[in-house]
């Protein structure tokens, strides 16, 4: 069974603050993919990153960075110097490499205030 937990339901920060969104997962699969998606108020799901279970290298993309810790089954997402446009619901998701059943976490609603 797979499960993704995003314990933070809502986070509110002031512009330029750094913010970390937590994601903890459970899976019996030894190989899997982890994802982060952004869902802005307009409703679409925007792909942010995919991480393979066998690649624990952290990644940075502009103001975004991801910390994958297999030992703690966590895949946290940090936004540095947050901006109002970062306001959205962020979903962490997991799928085994050998099937298509992507499981999403409940999402974290991030509000960045000016």
């Amino acid at each position, binding site marked *: 069974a797979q499960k993704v937990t995003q314990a933070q339901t809502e986070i509110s920060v002031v512009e330029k603050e750094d913010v970390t969104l937590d994601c903890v997962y459970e899976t019996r699969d030894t190989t899997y993919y982890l994802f982060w998606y952004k869902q802005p108020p307009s*409703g679409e799901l925007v792909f942010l990153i995919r991480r393979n279970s066998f690649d624990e290298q952290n990644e940075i993309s502009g103001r975004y960075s991801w910390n994958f810790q297999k030992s703690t089954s966590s895949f946290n997402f940090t936004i540095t110097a947050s901006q109002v446009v970062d306001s959205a619901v962020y979903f962490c998701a997991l799928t085994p490499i050998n099937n*298509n059943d992507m499981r*999403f976490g409940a999402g974290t609603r991030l509000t960045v205030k000016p």
Partner: protein
Amino acid sequence: AAGVIQSPRHLIKEKRETATLKCYPIPRHDTVYWYQQGPGQDPQFLISFYEKMQSDKGSIPDRFSAQQFSDYHSELNMSSLELGDSALYFCASSLRVLNYGYTFGSGTRLTVV
């Protein structure tokens, strides 16, 4: 770049009616997925197709059916609609061999009244 196209964007139906949602994947993508996202909920996997054959099945009600056609577009058919079917329905596509994440469409917002 071409994205996943879903139509219609919004749909209002009455209880017990039928609805058909369409999805046009990114060209050359061979896999299509359908997700249902209820108000304030995370997306739930319904069903997927690979090369026009059903690939995986999730929490899709028996009242729903889907298929993928020869041109790779997919349709989700929903019958005997219930109020609880009101949701955002996402289609996503991917190229299975790469599996570099799914590209989602903008969704169809179905409201059952």
